[in-house]
């Protein structure tokens, strides 16, 4: 188990290194000098050169990358003498727009995205898996057929359309819910939940369609397996057979997909954030891209990659915990 995790971690570090290199190389291939953008219109060539030296972007690319990596792990400093600016350990540089440390932006934005994704994930997993399980157990009934129809449509529905429909129905025309906003959980849990209810419902309903289809198919497959027949033959109650035996085997692939979905979403749910005007990581990326604010883009892309890679490892380990047939080696 330990050896497996260590090996996976090593591969993960290598993967992230390559992704950061690609991202770095690509983004610093931009011809318009960020120094020019930062400096403004009335800058002389000497001013621009000074800003470039200060940012360290007058150095050769490999050196810049080394500086970046150093900044992330041990911190770095920009400029020297009186203008020295220290950037402590997880240093991701400074925003080209307002000189705010990128680390600070990430720390501000991440809780918003996390809240959206985690609340939504609870809803979509609970709704999807239970719907899929019930319709598998009642295969062929009216309930099952209705569930199939709804989930088929739901799986083809898009967040940007469904979110706006909910916004119109629940906020604008009936006023049942307030317009989404973000209040930190630590400040007021009630306002936190009330403000995020709409994005949760949007993500929850839509994604649950996919999970319902998946868990229905998985459940049907496991219900026809020998160990379920054995469990029934032992005289276990239907409930025990369905939850302890069938569901536990059926849920493994669902955990994989859920883990990867959550990992991917944590990097930024930019559509949901755009619809509801929430200032999360996704919105930060969209804004940064529009102004070619490279340090922020670099940070959010890398962070998204970190989440995906981490989710992969977590899923693999969870596999062994959930499914006794899986041995990690």
């Amino acid at each position: 188990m330990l050896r497996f995790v260590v090996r996976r971690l090593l591969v993960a570090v290598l993967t992230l290194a390559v992704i950061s290199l690609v991202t770095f190389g690509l983004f610093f291939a931009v011809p318009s000098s960020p120094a020019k953008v930062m400096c403004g219109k009335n800058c002389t060539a000497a001013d621009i050169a000074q800003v470039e030296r200060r940012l360290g972007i007058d150095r050769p690319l490999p050196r810049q990358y080394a500086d970046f990596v150093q900044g992330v792990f041990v911190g770095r400093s920009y400029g020297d003498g009186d203008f020295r600016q220290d950037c402590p350990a997880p240093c991701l540089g400074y925003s080209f727009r307002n000189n705010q440390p990128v680390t600070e932006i990430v720390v501000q934005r991440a809780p918003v995205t996390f809240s959206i994704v985690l609340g939504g994930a609870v809803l979509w997993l609970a709704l999807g898996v239970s719907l899929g399980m019930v319709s598998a157990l009642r295969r062929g009934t009216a309930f099952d057929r209705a569930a199939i129809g709804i989930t088929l449509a739901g799986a083809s529905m898009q967040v940007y359309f469904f979110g706006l429909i909910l916004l119109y129905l629940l906020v604008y025309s009936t006023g049942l819910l307030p317009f989404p906003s973000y209040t930190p959980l630590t400040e007021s849990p009630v306002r936190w939940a009330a403000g995020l209810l709409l994005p949760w419902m949007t993500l929850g309903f839509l994604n649950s369609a996919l999970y319902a289809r998946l868990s229905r198919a998985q459940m049907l497959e496991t219900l026809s397996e020998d160990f379920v027949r054995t469990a029934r033959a032992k005289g276990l109650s239907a409930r025990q057979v369905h939850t302890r035996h069938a569901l536990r085997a059926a849920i493994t692939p669902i955990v994989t997909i859920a883990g990867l979905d959550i990992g991917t979403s944590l990097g930024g749910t930019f559509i949901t954030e755009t619809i509801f005007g929430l200032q999360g990581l996704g919105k930060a990326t969209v804004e940064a891209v529009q102004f070619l604010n490279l340090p922020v883009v670099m940070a959010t892309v890398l962070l998204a990659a970190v989440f995906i890679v981490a989710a992969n490892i977590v899923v693999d380990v969870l596999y062994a915990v959930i499914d006794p047939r899986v041995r990690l080696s």
Partner: protein
Amino acid sequence: MSDLSHPPSLTAPGDPAAGEPIVSTPPDPVAAPSQIVGRSPNQLAWLRLKRDRMARASAVTLVVAAVVALGAPLLGLVTGIDPTDKFVDRLNDFGMPIGYAGGISADHWLGLEPGSGRDILLQLVYGLRTSLFIAFASALLASFIGVAVGVLAGWARGWLDSVVNWLIDLTLAFPFLIFALAVIPILQDRFYSDRESPSPAFRVALIVATFGLFSWTYTARLVRGQVISLREREFVEAARAAGAGTGHILLRQLLPNIWAPILVTVSLMVPQFIAIEAALAFVNIGVTEPTPDLGRMIFNSIGYVASDPWYTLFPGLTIFLLVLAFNLLGDALRDSLDPRSTR
């Protein structure tokens, strides 16, 4: 591996035209059950697909969509409206269309865009073209790369296979959407300065390339697995014994055996690309004005959801129906090509 003959050969067997002779020859199975007719697996798949009501309905929907998209200029001629025409005189002082349901009238069947005053139907129809073109081009590019890489890895094995596997893992670890979001404007900046506006074709090509380069992994894995299992079969050995070259074995012996799963992945990739393209346009990263786009229409409509929900409804419904029809057709295709799968 750069043989350009793959994509046509992949799609040809699914063509209705290819199945035409079968339609006329086999007798009705109910009317003459005693008569035994030999049918190839492809013919059986085609028969199963034809019997599927869902598949028929979605195929009709898609054909209608394709005809409408192709005939967009014709519609412009009939109605006498250009997608860029602005009917500002039909808007009130607040920029909202005059009349019911977003200004629906005999001249403007689906009303007008609030603010700009453009005809929604024309925007929709031209947006359909953008959407379908990008989705199909990306699906073909991704499948082409996937098939090429998959065949290469499966056939060569050894270190090349390991490299490809690692490349696939790496690509899967890339946060595709966030990366696409970042890459498209940055690359555009690389080739165009601020002042000149990029040509729409360049933007479309950039989007297609980005989609293709990040979506080949599934096809590659699939093809690699198939090639590995097929390469040891007797018919490959026979071909080699008969003196066939590698190119012949790969293209003539192996590919015809794996076109079915490839076709299914292509058909399921298209709706995904439609949705992703609209999602990028939704955050203003997709195709730019004045090229009409369904996703951007929805983005523009955000500010008007409270006052003119019809503006959101039409493009949203169009994308939904398009994606639904493609998904249903893809599912039906998979079911018909794989007799073991059950509903």
